[in-house]
C-alpha cells in the first residue's frame, strides 16, 4: 500500500486501471469524464501502453473488443449519451465472452440532457442496454477510495468470467478530490493467462472470437452457457454495505453519491432520536438480496433514494417482495437531492405517508 494522496475521482479511475494492469484505453471525449482519458493519454505511454482517442464511442467500444480479443486488459469510459452508443459493442463483448471494463460517469438525460450528476442509467446498466439475454456486473462506488478498489477489482471479475464489467459514478465522484491510498500495482506477470485470445496460431489450432451461432440449437446452448455464468456471478460476486443500528425501523436504500447524502441525513436524524438503517448496494447487478433478508423482519418500511425518477427502487421492490412498504424519493436531471428533502421524505415515511406524493 502506498501513501495517502489527494486525487480527483476521474484521475484516480485512470490510475487504478493502470495499477490493475490495464495498458489500453480507447475513448471519445464527453463531460463529465474527460479527466479519465486526459490522465491516461499522459500516463499510458509512460508504462508502455496505448491511449487512443477514437472517432466515436461506437468505434471505441469496438477497439476495446479487438484489444480484449487479443488478450489485453482494456478499458473505455464515457458518460450517458456515449454509453448508449456503446451498447451494441457491449452486447457483442458479452456474446463473444470478452473481458473489459467500462466506466460510466452518469449525467442527466434523456437525450443530450445535462452534465450534472445523475443515476438515471441504472436500468441501462443493470438490464443490459444492448440486445440479447446478457448481463454485465455493475459496481457503484460511493467514494474515491472505493472507486479505486472497485476499478481494480472490476478487471479481476472481468477476466474471471470473461465478461464486460461496468463501473458507474457521476460527476460529483468524478470531479471531487478526496484522499486515497493507492494499492500497489499488480505485477503484469501475475495477470491471468488467456489461451483463447487471438494472438496468431503459432503451434496451436486457430482461435476464433465470435458471437454468431446460425443454428438455433447452438445459439441456445451458448445462451445456456452464458446464463450459467451469470448465475455463478450472482452466487459469488454480490457486494453491499449494511448499516444496521440497534432499533432501526426505517431502512434507506441508496448507492453511490446518493448514499453519502443519505448518511448525513441519518446522522442528523439520530440526533433527533430517529434511528435508521441503510442498505447500500455496491454491486447494482447482481443486486444484493441478502441484506433485505437480514432486516426485513424488523423493518417497518424501506425508503429508496436515487438521482433518478425511480429505477433501483424496482429491484428493491423485487427484493422486499411485498413484505413491507417500499417508498421512493428521487430528483432528476442532474439535481442532487438535498439532506433537507431526504429528511422530509423520511418524516413522511415515519408518519405513514408516501414521500413521492
Amino acid at each position: 500500500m502506498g501513501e495517502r494522496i489527494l486525487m480527483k475521482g476521474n484521475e484516480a479511475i485512470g490510475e487504478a486501471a493502470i495499477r490493475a494492469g490495464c495498458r489500453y484505453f480507447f475513448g471519445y471525449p464527453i463531460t463529465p469524464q474527460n479527466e479519465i482519458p486526459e490522465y491516461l493519454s499522459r500516463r499510458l505511454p509512460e508504462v508502455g501502453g496505448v491511449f487512443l482517442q477514437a472517432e466515436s464511442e461506437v468505434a471505441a467500444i469496438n477497439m476495446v473488443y479487438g484489444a480484449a480479443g487479443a488478450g489485453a486488459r482494456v478499458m473505455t469510459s464515457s458518460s450517458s449519451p456515449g454509453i448508449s452508443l456503446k451498447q451494441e459493442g457491449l452486447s457483442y463483448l458479452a456474446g463473444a465472452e470478452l473481458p473489459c471494463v467500462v466506466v460510466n460517469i452518469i449525467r442527466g438525460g434523456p437525450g443530450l440532457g445535462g452534465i450534472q450528476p445523475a443515476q438515471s442509467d441504472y436500468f441501462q446498466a443493470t438490464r443490459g442496454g444492448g440486445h440479447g439475454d446478457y448481463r454485465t456486473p455493475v459496481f457503484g462506488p460511493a467514494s474515491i477510495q472505493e472507486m479505486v478498489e472497485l476499478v481494480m477489482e472490476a478487471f479481476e471479475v472481468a477476466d474471471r468470467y470473461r465478461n464486460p464489467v461496468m463501473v458507474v459514478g457521476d460527476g460529483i465522484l468524478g470531479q471531487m478530490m478526496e484522499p486515497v491510498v493507492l494499492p500497489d500495482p499488480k505485477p503484469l506477470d501475475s495477470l491471468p493467462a488467456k489461451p483463447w485470445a487471438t494472438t496468431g496460431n503459432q503451434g496451436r489450432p486457430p482461435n476464433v472470437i465470435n458471437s454468431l451461432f446460425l443454428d438455433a440449437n447452438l445459439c441456445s446452448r451458448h445462451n445456456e452457457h452464458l446464463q450459467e455464468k451469470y448465475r455463478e456471478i450472482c452466487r459469488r460476486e454480490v457486494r453491499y454495505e449494511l448499516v444496521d443500528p440497534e432499533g432501526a425501523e426505517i431502512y434507506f436504500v441508496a448507492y453511490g453519491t446518493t448514499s453519502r447524502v443519505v448518511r448525513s441525513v441519518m446522522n442528523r436524524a439520530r440526533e433527533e432520536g430517529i434511528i435508521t438503517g441503510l442498505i447500500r448496494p455496491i454491486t447494482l447487478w447482481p443486486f444484493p438480496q441478502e441484506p433485505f433478508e437480514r432486516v426485513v423482519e424488523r423493518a417497518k418500511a424501506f425508503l429508496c433514494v436515487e438521482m433518478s425518477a425511480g429505477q433501483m427502487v424496482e429491484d428493491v421492490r423485487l427484493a422486499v417482495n411485498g413484505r413491507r412498504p417500499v417508498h421512493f424519493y428521487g430528483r432528476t436531471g442532474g439535481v442532487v437531492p438535498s439532506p433537507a428533502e431526504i429528511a422530509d421524505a423520511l418524516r413522511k415515511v415515519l408518519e405513514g405517508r408516501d414521500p413521492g406524493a
Partner: protein
Amino acid sequence: MREVFTRPKSMRKVVMHYCPGCTHGIAHRLVAEAIDELGIQHRTIGVASVGCSVLAYEYFDCDFQQAAHGRAPAVATGIKRVLPDRVVFTYQGDGDLASIGTAEIVHAAMRGERITVIFINNAVYGMTGGQMAPTTLVGQVTTTSPGGRDPRHCGHPIRIAEMLATLEGAAYVARVSLHDPAHVARARRAVLKAFRTQLEDRGFALVEMLSSCPTNWGMSPREALRWVKEKLIPQYPLGEFRVPEEEARP
C-alpha cells in the same frame, strides 16, 4: 506429377457456402495465397465483418475475430495496437464498409492504421437479399430500388478507393476486378502489396475488389462477370490510387 492447383495452406478444408459463380471465393483464395507466400499464417489475425463473408473465420486457417456490422476496422485497430508485430486484416462488403462502417474505415485510414483491408464491392447488400448499397449503380434495380437507383432520391454511387486515397495515412489503395483470369492475376499482386505495406510498417492498405453477386443481380455467373466488366468498371475505374512513397518514385 506436378501439382498445378492446390488449396492454399491458409485455407481450411471445408466447403464454402457462397453461391455458384460468386467471386467471394476467389477473393478468399487471393488473400490466403498472399498469406502463404509471405509466410505469415501463424501471425495473422483476420477480422470478419457482417455480410455474406460473415463466416470467413471458418474458411481461413488462422486466428480470427468476428466484428459487428461496419466495425471491423475498429476491431482491427484494437488488435493491432495490442499486437503491433502481428498481421491484421479485415474482409468487408460494401454495405459493411461503405455504408454503416464509413466512419470506422475513414478514421482507420486517417490514422494510418497498420492494417490491410479487403473490400468487396458487389454493388448490393448480398446477405440480406440484394437491397440497394451506397455502391449501387445509377438506374440499377435492387429490392429497395425497384425503379432503379434514382440519384435525385438517393445520390450517386460512392467511390471508396478514390476517397480514401486523399488521406496521407493511406499508404496503399487500389481497385481491382475479379471478372477474368488476367484481372485476378492483377488482383493477386495488389493483395500482396497491401500485405507488404503492412509488413513494412508503411501505413493503411486497402484493396477494393469489384466482385459479382449473380444471385442478387438475377444473372447467370457468366452474365454477372460480363456485367462487372461492362457496367461496374466504367463507374469504378481500376488502378492504384496510392502507393507507398518509395515505390512511387520513378
